């Protein structure tokens, strides 16, 4: 009889784990351990310059919770994520139902409307920065020509990135602009997976459009809508480029969000420990999205 390590099963396992090892090692070393390391950093007084750090317990978290800037950033993060999420859901659903219809030029239209999502974000934000220019904004030009606002210098001339409420609305708008095609395409994939027979059957049974929508379509696309929203939340919560490039948190903290705060404290000011603590406050916000995604994965597995 063969020793156990020479049996075909054992050899298959050995082969399999050898193949898996590089990927598992890479993500363990550069995602898993750094994540744990960030917990440690958050409880130390580590800075960019000093190689040796001392353990300070929850001091960094306490310092964050005691600073007014942190609450502003937290509130903006929530307003930003929830507000932009709802807008993306609405626009995405409308677009998905339009694209679901058969019509001439559908492929071309689809290719054009997804551009905001596929173009690198740092690149397109620069275009928005120019469109939001305080004096030569093309948006203001159009509004002014339509007679909705006065000429440059008049009191109702909007300075998109310079007025607190407008600035927050503007950065949210760019996030919506970037994300709505993603919502639409994910939903479209979900809608096309609803077999037409099911909808026809409901129609034959006398269901009205709203009933078909509520009883048949919504339950069938709910999981996919969930997944899309969860991914989008992860993307949105972790993206700093829009705010960093458009306003860098200004004017006067009006658009400060946790990612920009973490970057400014951790990298700009070099206080790694305090920056890590601030960025970890994002984790409880991310957790629901991650749980949703994992549960859907599990369901598929078994």
């Amino acid at each position: 009889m063969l020793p156990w390590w020479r049996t075909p099963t054992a050899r298959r396992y050995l082969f399999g784990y050898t193949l898996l090892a590089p990927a598992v090692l890479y993500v363990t070393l550069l995602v898993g351990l750094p994540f744990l390391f960030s917990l440690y950093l958050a409880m130390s007084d580590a800075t960019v310059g000093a190689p040796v750090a001392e353990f300070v317990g929850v001091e960094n978290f306490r310092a964050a919770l005691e600073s007014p800037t942190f609450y502003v950033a937290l509130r903006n993060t929530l307003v930003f994520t929830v507000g932009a999420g709802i807008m993306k859901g609405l626009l995405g659903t409308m677009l998905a139902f339009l694209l679901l219809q058969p019509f001439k030029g559908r492929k071309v239209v689809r290719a054009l409307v997804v551009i905001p999502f596929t173009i690198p974000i740092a690149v397109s934000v620069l275009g928005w920065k120019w469109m939001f220019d305080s004096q030569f904004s093309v948006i203001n030009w159009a509004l002014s020509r339509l007679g909705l606002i006065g000429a440059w210098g008049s009191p109702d001339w909007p300075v998109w990135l310079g007025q607190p409420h407008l600035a927050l609305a503007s950065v949210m708008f760019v996030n919506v602009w970037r994300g709505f095609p993603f919502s639409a395409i994910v939903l479209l994939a979900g809608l096309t997976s609803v077999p037409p027979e099911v909808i026809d059957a409901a129609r034959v049974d006398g269901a009205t459009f709203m009933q078909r929508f509520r009883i048949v379509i919504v339950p069938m696309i709910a999981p996919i809508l969930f997944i899309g929203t969860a991914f989008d939340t992860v993307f949105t919560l972790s993206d700093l480029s829009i705010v960093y490039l458009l306003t860098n948190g200004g004017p006067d903290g009006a658009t400060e969000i946790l990612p920009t705060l973490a970057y400014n404290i951790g990298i700009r000011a070099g206080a790694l420990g305090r920056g890590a603590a601030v960025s970890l406050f994002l984790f409880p916000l991310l957790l629901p999205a991650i749980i949703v995604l994992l549960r859907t994965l599990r369901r598929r597995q078994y």
Partner: protein
Amino acid sequence: MATAVAVPRTHRSKEIRRHTLIYLGLIPFLILAVFPIFWMAITAIKQEPDLYRMDIVPFWFHLPPTWKNFDFLFHRTFYADWIVNTMAISFWVSAITLLTAVPAGYALARLRLPFGENLGIGIFVTYLVPAIILFIPLARVVSTLELQDSWWSLVVVYPTFTIPFCTWLLMGFFKTVPFEIEEAAMVDGCGQLGALCRVVLPVSVPGIITSVIFSFTLSMQDFLYSLAFVSISEQKPVPLGVATELIRGDVYFWGSLMAGALLVGVPVAIVYNLFLDKFISGITGAAIK
């Protein structure tokens, strides 16, 4: 006979009405999606005085178009270096991703390992741990490796998101390769590794190409890591270079900014566009199928 002619006509006018309604609904979305890109493109080839006129319709040229902004990029900035850096980063990230994700995807799809599913999910979870949580500890890793201010630091960190994504993409791909061709190869005397290399890999070329494309496009979507780790002008990748180096204090070189942004943004957008369905099914396949 009269009715036979009339039926297709009403059908046709119905179709026209339907199309008109759909197009009317789509126009706002199209303008929203495309106008910013059009605006960037026209800004890139306008002469500077033409940019700062509020008294004329800005959607067309009032002075002849110019290539001056592109000229400026290549002769007065590090733009050429940034392109070379971006290409080099993409090459190495693709190489690392393929060497790790191809075997891992295959093992997860085929070998029914104990804990295999959990390992697969574990790898996927790392895709969900965002850069914003990892960039501070990774800053320490990068400085320990003495790679700060070098584009090599990005070669080390970008696989943290390309490996999980491509592993799952390839796993789905390998599941579609019929098991019989592998069995046939093994019956013919190939070992398991031989069957993988000689039979499975050749038919998986489309999946592998897709992984390379995503290693490239996902790397191009990054901003945070490059911003945090690379501050030397010559070492930057294109998105970071354009966003940080073409602004002097409060002076924006809008023409060359837009030129530099679009010159890489448009090719990336086109390639990504072609593979978008693969991206969506790569991350959401779980719920759709």
